[in-house]
């Protein structure tokens, strides 16, 4: 009878495990929750984090306020029920995604079926539960659990556990996390120091206890001796307990000296750990910040081309990061006021640090070394073909190679300059016009005007627009639907939504045209 029941339970559990495991909505929900809680690249995580931080701070504030002031009932309810409930839900969710219980059960079951062995539920379940337990005893999970406890009102003492909510902040504030991480790199030194401190404190405590137990009315047991020893060694010296005998004072002097030495040693260890890591932390911040943007440039190499690129006015609108292998150049870039990090863009791990899936990434290969540029191009394209690559090539001969590597645009600075020079020599008067157009000078700025949904241009024929009145020249229209560029279009061409007009004129003229063709000012802020 009992055996039959056990069998039924077993088959019921595995049935549900399989069902959950195969359900796409279950897996989807799990992924969404995991992304929200753990993926720093998730844009919503920031909101969630801010929300939790707000709950924590308000809860702690209520605790402090309560000491001296009466708290309105609704605030009390908010603290007890709402905050705790949110924390409880968060705890359960974290426990849920910490390991995949149903997945493991199913895997075990399938393995058993595959080899023809009888499936035993309990050992498999035990292993899964053990994993959950392993998560529950991690410091972070314990803090989370304790932070829920203050909700239990009958025990007033539990109120102090609100402070664990403060500790919860650890998870949500990166700087504290990084602080701990930095200290962890010096674990050996710090542990050695702690051991030494422990040893010296204990020695001093025992000495003072043995020597002054009879004479000093303040030292009555070993605990008081240890308390005195620690207060002295850390150079705090409250003075509530002081040595009275000569021998006691001698001991005090020795442990004060040792204390000063140890504290300065500890300080230097921590400072050196930070100065080693600070650089890295800063770079990480830059990378994280850029990863949150929707579109950004990775500029490889800080040379003359990059400098010129930034000198031009349009550069202000980009999100970018500069990578260079040479620390000196990076220093120069930082000195010039740009975000730059020391890293080798030709390495896979370097480019993988960036949020390539979520953002539109463009890599600019600005080095004058073709081999390096091609390598970076290949590297970027091998990580994700969607990464746009604009590369600089030294000679026309090598352009084919760049194209084969997958570069989207290849620049030939030398050739462009030579072509311009020939123009300047053969057609000196025209050169000025062409130069103005190519370098985008104000008088002849090429600009694109998008016919968007709020534009008054929709349905209007090209001939009906008086470009001359705007001091603009219409060069062509990119037809959205046909996907084709019409140079010097016929008057009869009708503009549709999504079309782009290519016009030339002064900046003020283009902006004026853009504004006046817009029906809804707020929406056309582009």
């Amino acid at each position, binding site marked *: 009878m009992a055996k039959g029941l056990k069998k039924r339970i077993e088959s019921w559990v595995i049935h549900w495990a399989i069902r959950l495991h195969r359900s796409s909505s279950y897996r989807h929900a799990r992924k969404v929750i995991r992304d929200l809680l753990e993926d720093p690249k998730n844009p919503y995580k920031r909101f969630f984090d801010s929300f939790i931080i707000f709950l924590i701070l308000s809860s702690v504030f209520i605790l402090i306020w309560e000491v001296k002031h009466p708290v309105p009932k609704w605030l009390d309810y908010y603290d007890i029920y709402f905050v705790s409930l949110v924390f409880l839900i968060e705890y359960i969710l974290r426990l849920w995604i910490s390991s995949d219980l149903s997945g493991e059960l199913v895997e075990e079951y399938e393995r058993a079926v595959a080899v023809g062995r009888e499936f035993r539920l309990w050992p498999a379940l035990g292993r899964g539960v053990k994993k959950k337990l392993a998560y529950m005893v991690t410091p972070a999970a314990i803090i989370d659990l304790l932070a829920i406890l203050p909700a239990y009102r009958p025990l007033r003492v539990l109120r102090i556990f609100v402070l664990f909510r403060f500790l919860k902040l650890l998870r949500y504030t990166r700087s504290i996390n990084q602080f701990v991480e930095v200290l962890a790199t010096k674990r050996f030194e710090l542990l050695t120091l702690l051991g030494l401190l422990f040893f010296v404190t204990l020695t001093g405590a025992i000495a003072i206890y043995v020597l002054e137990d009879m004479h000093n009315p303040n030292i009555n047991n070993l605990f008081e001796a240890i308390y005195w020893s620690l207060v002295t060694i850390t150079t705090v010296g409250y003075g509530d307990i002081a040595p009275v005998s000569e021998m006691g004072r001698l001991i005090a002097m020795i442990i004060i000296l040792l204390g000063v030495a140890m504290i300065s040693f500890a300080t230097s260890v921590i400072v050196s750990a930070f100065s080693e890591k600070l650089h890295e932390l800063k770079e990480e911040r830059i990378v994280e910040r850029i990863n949150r943007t929707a579109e950004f440039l990775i500029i490889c190499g800080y040379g*003359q081309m990059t400098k010129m690129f930034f000198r031009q006015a349009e550069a202000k609108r980009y999100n970018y990061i500069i990578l260079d292998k040479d620390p000196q150049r990076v220093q120069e870039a930082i000195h010039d006021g740009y975000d730059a990090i020391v890293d080798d863009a030709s390495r896979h791990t370097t480019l993988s640090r960036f949020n390539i899936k979520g953002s539109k990434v463009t890599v600019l290969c600005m080095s004058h070394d073709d081999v390096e540029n091609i390598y970076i191009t290949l590297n970027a394209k091998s990580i994700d073909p969607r990464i746009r690559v*604009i590369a600089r090539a030294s000679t026309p001969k090598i352009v084919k190679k760049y194209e084969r590597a997958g570069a989207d645009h290849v*620049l030939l*600075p030398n050739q462009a300059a030579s072509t311009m020079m020939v123009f300047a020599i*053969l057609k000196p*008067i025209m*050169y000025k016009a062409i130069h103005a157009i*190519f370098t985008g000078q104000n008088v002849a700025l090429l600009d694109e005007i998008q016919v968007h949904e709020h534009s008054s241009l929709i349905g209007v024929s090209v001939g009906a627009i008086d470009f001359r009145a705007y001091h603009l020249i219409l060069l062509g229209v990119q037809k959205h639907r046909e996907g084709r560029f019409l*140079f010097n279009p016929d008057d009869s061409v009708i503009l549709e939504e999504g079309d782009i007009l290519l016009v030339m004129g002064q900046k003020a003229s283009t902006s004026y045209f853009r504004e006046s063709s817009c029906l809804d000012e707020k929406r056309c802020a582009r």
Partner: protein
Amino acid sequence: MTATKRIYLFGYGKFGRSIAEELAEHEAEVVLIESKESHFHEARKLGKFQRTLLMDVTDDDALGELPVRMDDQLVCVMDDDHLNVFLVLSLRALFPESKILAISDSIHATRKLKMAGANKVIDLYSISATRIHNILNKPIATRFLEGFLEAEHEYSFREIVIPEGSFLHGKKLEEVDFRRYGVIFVGMIDVELGNSFIFVTTGLEHKIDTGDIIVCIGHDEDLDRFEHEIVPSGEEPQ
């Protein structure tokens, strides 16, 4: 108009090579001056240029002996930036009337070349940086500009002199419908103002006279047809 002027090209290196060859293709008179022997022999072997000279460009006496006329153009495209600046400085002192052009391939050199006396400095980085900005922000403008540069260019610029007796004579600019001819009027060259180019986008108002030079963009065949049509009637094509 420009073909009879002589061009002194200093340097047959990374820029000089392509410039020299393109100039030769346009049948310009090119005198090539190079200070490096290997480059000099290469240029000589090609044999496309009117004269090829081997010369130490830091030597003012040798430079002074060049038979430079007033409207010759001096083009400095030495590989070495410092040498280029030095050369411009020497040439300016020797030939104060001539037009000196130079390529700058470093940010710092552009201003120095100008100060040394170059009339025109082509800044390699500035051109390329603008192109990157265009690629990033204005894909259509980029494609349009590339249409000019490619060997089998789609569109080109053309200077057109208004011939005697043309129907355009005496007309105001805004009265002429250039688009009907498939060309785009960009601006004109003001001969009185020292051959300067004026963009129509500056709000140019002008009555066209015989001898004016207008500048248009268009497909080559459209430009040809337009040029035919503006000559006095009777010779109209088709």
